[in-house]
């Protein structure tokens, strides 16, 4: 990445985290450089568009900086950043509900399945995009990204049982939508 400085977590990590908690900008930059790729990757999993993920990475770190006094160094920076990033992504999905498109071609390029017509995949993607954002995110992270429920629960600030319920409801709504369109999954 252009202009990036590679920083590895070192023995002074706790000092950096404490300094960030007290609003030190240099420590914030260090944490930004260290975690921006991880946060971007996480956001990309949810919004599935690299440019949007970049914009939301900036918004996430801006919120992180403003909330520095509430940061608990014991909890760890990455988990905290991931939770904030998830809420930023959810806000974005809610605000862009009608415009959100999920790239079908991404799946077609990476995992082509001749058994399923492009039209069905396109309709499935469109139906999935119509799901309420909180259900869609849970299903994306669980079914598509195959992340552990515990990890998703932490990012969404909900229980594991709530994650399972959201995934189930998302799949049920998706099936219902497809059946309405004459597609029997």
């Amino acid at each position, binding site marked *: 990445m252009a202009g990036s400085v590679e920083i590895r977590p070192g023995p002074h990590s706790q000092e950096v985290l404490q300094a960030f908690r007290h609003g030190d900008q240099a420590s914030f930059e260090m944490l930004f450089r260290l975690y921006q790729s991880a946060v971007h990757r996480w956001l990309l999993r949810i919004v599935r568009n690299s440019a949007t993920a970049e914009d939301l990475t900036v918004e996430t770190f801006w919120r992180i900086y403003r909330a520095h006094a509430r940061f608990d160094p014991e909890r760890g920076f990455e988990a905290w950043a991931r939770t904030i990033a998830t809420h930023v992504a959810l806000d974005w999905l809610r605000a862009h509900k009608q415009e959100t498109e999920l790239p079908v071609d991404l799946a077609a390029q990476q995992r082509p399945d001749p058994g399923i017509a492009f039209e069905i995949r396109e309709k499935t993607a469109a139906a999935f995009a119509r799901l309420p954002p909180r259900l869609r995110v849970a299903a994306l992270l669980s079914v598509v990204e195959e992340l552990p429920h515990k990890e998703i629960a932490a990012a969404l600030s909900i229980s594991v049982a709530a994650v399972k319920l959201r995934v189930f409801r998302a799949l049920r709504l998706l*099936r219902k939508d497809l059946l309405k369109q004459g597609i029997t999954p």
Partner: protein
Amino acid sequence: MNTHDEDRIRQLLKQTLAPAPDTGPSRDLWPSILRRLDARPSPPWFDWALAAGLALFIALFPTAIPLFLYYL
């Protein structure tokens, strides 16, 4: 929806959407953060309205200033 239906819809979703690629940002995002850090936040409209109201009150009732200061 039974378990069989759930499995089939899961499979369809997995075949429709691939996991996101493991890539980082295409550019350095720090300058964007710096721009936000450097932008001074403007005082909220309520603060301005309160200051304007207070100035108007003092201009209209200058004799109330000692009383106002007493209750500060």
